[in-house]
């Protein structure tokens, strides 16, 4: 095998997973730097912004323009959701872990798998090009609500840049679709003998449900994106209402409905919220159980609650639209379903706590990130309950309360798990351990700073501070909150800066890390049977699975773990 086929155009699921991981982490950095730029503007509005300001706005003395800020918030959201969280969960960990955890030698369709990664590249290129398009990039928010996104005259970035954004999104959709077909087929068809559905690790359950969500919801988004492209390029009017007056010119055509986009978009993007969360929950369950040396508490309820999250996830999209102008009666119905979806998430949290209770917690870096995830997810989940209460949404919709909520879920939640999972599965990926000392410094600083950045946003939201404003000092009501904004900004800079520790650890450990054995954590699931890193084809000998993945500290055994492939029987102890 040449270098190209081995490391670039590889159809090996592990290489593809690592490709997804690295490209997502690079985008993570880009998105984080964008957030830092936004925070600069919010703390010291219209002041001389470092680097970006002197590079792009020299004749204004480094003062960025408001549409540049809008572009930053749009691209920050887009990059973080479509290029970081979704690909890193499904693309990186899904690819890497699914065949290993079910005992398969590769994905069901290795070439399709490779394509699914390489279809991300047109998306990357489209987004990069859109920065160079007039207006510095799309500026209609990551939700790209029409008519702002459709009327070229409505916003500087709503021209070519928006078209590129939509095209990029289409490619992301194609990539995800290829991935999810592959995951479903692999999980259903390629499990090792003895690996029944109820012996699957939670990660695999989560990936399966995620893939199903993707497969059913994504076509709707793709259709909507194509409709928006058609509105822009072909002169259709799906989202263009009658008689809109932009500037002073009457928009030709009409008869469309701007709210239609919101319905279609959130029909995908609310399930996408769970696409961004369920795999994290699955991986958290696996790490928690193995590091607590204790069986996962309530395996089946955990599975059922995940399935119900997946099911309910399809009928709650309207809670993004409580005050959108949608018929209020419809809003009332969505409110009830939304309230219900809090329940399975709650059950999962309680089960995690019960898993920890009475365990022997190994406080590795991966485990600490998982514990941090639980704490952050509780905060983000509970503020989500508040948002399900529609009358309260009248007040907090589009305020910083929302920003605090979804950052607690996506950054405090998912991203912590992603980082924790990197620490946990790094030995399997690269055959070396990451530095625990650096890891713990990284965890401590990240955990503290996340809260410094996002917790005060709850208070800003309770004041009614609106999202997506380039300058709060412009208003009368919120100018007094500027000290809070400055504090958040300092914390955000520190948060971005401490990620350097992680970058150093990640790349440094590849070269200098301690060599890892096959099973450095003494964990049960199948990936720890394979060599570290696993060779092409994963397992040297055929596997038979005898029990579930969570048989830790089984009484009467000398070792506190019991690998799924281990044929010996315990006295009268059956796996569930």
């Amino acid at each position: 095998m040449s270098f190209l086929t081995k490391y670039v155009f590889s159809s090996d699921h592990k290489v593809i997973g690592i490709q997804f991981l690295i490209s997502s982490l690079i985008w993570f950095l880009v998105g984080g730097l964008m957030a830092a730029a936004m925070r600069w503007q919010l703390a010291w509005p219209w002041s001389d912004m470092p680097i970006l300001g002197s590079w792009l706005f020299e004749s204004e003395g480094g003062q960025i323009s408001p549409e540049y800020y809008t572009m930053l918030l749009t691209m920050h959201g887009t990059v973080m959701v479509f290029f970081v969280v979704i690909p890193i969960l499904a693309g990186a960990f899904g690819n890497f872990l699914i065949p290993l955890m079910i005992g398969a030698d590769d994905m069901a369709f290795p070439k399709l798998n490779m394509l699914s990664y390489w279809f991300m590249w047109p998306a990357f290129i489209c987004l990069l090009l859109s920065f160079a398009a007039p207006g510095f990039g799309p500026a209609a928010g990551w939700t790209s609500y029409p008519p702002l996104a459709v009327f070229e005259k409505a916003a500087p970035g709503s021209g070519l840049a928006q078209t590129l954004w939509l095209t990029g999104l289409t490619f992301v959709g194609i990539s995800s679709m290829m991935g999810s077909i592959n995951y479903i087929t692999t999980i259903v068809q390629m499990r090792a003998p003895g690996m029944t559905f109820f012996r699957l690790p939670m990660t695999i359950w989560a990936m399966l449900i995620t893939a199903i969500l993707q497969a059913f919801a994504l076509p709707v988004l793709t259709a909507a994106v194509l409709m928006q492209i058609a509105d822009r390029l072909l002169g259709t009017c799906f989202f263009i209402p009658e008689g809109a007056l932009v500037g002073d010119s009457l928009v030709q055509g009409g008869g469309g409905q701007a709210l239609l986009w919101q319905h279609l978009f959130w029909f995908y993007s609310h399930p996408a919220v769970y696409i961004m969360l369920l795999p994290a929950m699955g991986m958290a369950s696996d790490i928690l159980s193995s590091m607590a040396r204790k069986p996962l508490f309530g395996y089946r309820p955990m599975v059922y609650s995940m399935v119900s999250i997946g099911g309910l996830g399809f009928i709650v999209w309207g809670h993004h639209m409580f005050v959108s102008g949608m018929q209020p009666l419809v809003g009332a119905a969505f409110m009830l379903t939304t309230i219900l979806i809090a329940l399975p998430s709650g059950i999962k949290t309680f089960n995690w706590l019960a898993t920890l209770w009475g365990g022997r917690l190994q406080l590795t870096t991966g485990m600490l990130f998982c514990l941090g995830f639980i704490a952050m997810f509780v905060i983000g989940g509970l503020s989500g309950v508040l948002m399900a209460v529609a009358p309260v949404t009248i007040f907090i919709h589009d305020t910083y309360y929302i920003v605090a909520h979804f950052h607690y879920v996506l950054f405090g939640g998912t991203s912590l798990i992603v980082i924790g999972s990197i620490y946990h599965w790094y030995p399997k990926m690269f055959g070396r351990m990451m530095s625990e000392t650096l890891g713990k410094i990284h965890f401590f600083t990240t955990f503290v700073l996340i809260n410094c950045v996002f917790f005060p946003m709850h208070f800003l939201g309770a004041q009614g501070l609106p999202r997506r404003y380039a300058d709060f000092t412009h208003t009368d009501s919120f100018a007094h909150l500027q000290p809070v904004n400055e504090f958040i900004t300092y914390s955000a800079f520190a948060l971005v800066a401490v990620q350097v520790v992680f970058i150093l650890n990640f790349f440094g450990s590849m070269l200098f890390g301690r060599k890892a054995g096959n099973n450095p954590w003494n964990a049960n699931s199948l990936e720890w049977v394979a060599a570290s890193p696993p060779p092409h084809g994963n397992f040297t000998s055929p596997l038979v699975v005898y029990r579930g993945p969570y048989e830790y500290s089984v009484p009467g055994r000398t070792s506190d773990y019991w690998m799924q492939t281990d044929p010996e029987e315990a006295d009268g102890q059956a796996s569930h």
Partner: protein
Amino acid sequence: MMHRFWAILFSLVPVLGIGLYVLAVVGKGSIGGFSLAGLWLPENANPYATTIDHLFDLVHIICGVVLGITTSVLAYVIWRYADHSGRKNEAAQYVTHNALLEWIWTVIPAAILVFLGFYQLQVWADNKMNRPLEIVDGQSQAVEPMALVVGKQFGWDVYYPGPDGRLGTADDQRIENDLTVPVGQPVVLRVEAQDVLHSFAIPGLRVKQDVVPGMTQLVWFQVDKPGTYEILCMELCGWGHYKMRARMKAVAPSAPVVAQTAPADSAIIEPGASTTTPVVVEEVQD
């Protein structure tokens, strides 16, 4: 004893999480010279929305209790069950499930959530579905909109009915970014958008309604406190989103509202002139 350190770190989550909330709600104290007073809900001048504030507090209390319990348990678990040299001989317990426990923590949250779901319906209906009523000629009927507010990039055009007394005709009096409403009476506004999505929001009155081009919405509120309020846009509407704000003055009903485009000619509109009959606010019940 690194695990103690982590346990203390995690115990800060419930302590600071709830503590800061309490400080903000109580509105006392300061951090680094920044007063915590006024970090909670801004003062509400809209009697229809007191229930919103009430719900906001109620959900926060419920969530605060859950937050306190779960994160305290988490911190305790780390304190008690972390592996360290003193626990060499203590094995982890082998517990796979416990039906009773699981039923308890399914049913109780479910009950609370279902209660919340139904409890809020009336508040939602009052704020978004049941327009205030007034008595006209012995008949109770919904209050008619007193003005039309049209969002555009980047400002709010306020139209008062012209001499013909109707909204949406050519003789409407237009003034940009300046709305005047009477105090102590239900006010209904027609809100629309001209170009892209906007959101008509007045934080001090808990009013928020997205406006969509091609659609018409009604918002209603009552201002009990005379003064000036800020109308904001809360849906991304382009580069000038942050500067799209207007002023709403609440004045005594007897004072004439002067819609002033210039000193030269101004339209004088009597707020509530068409609703001189006593106003009765009633919720529509089945």
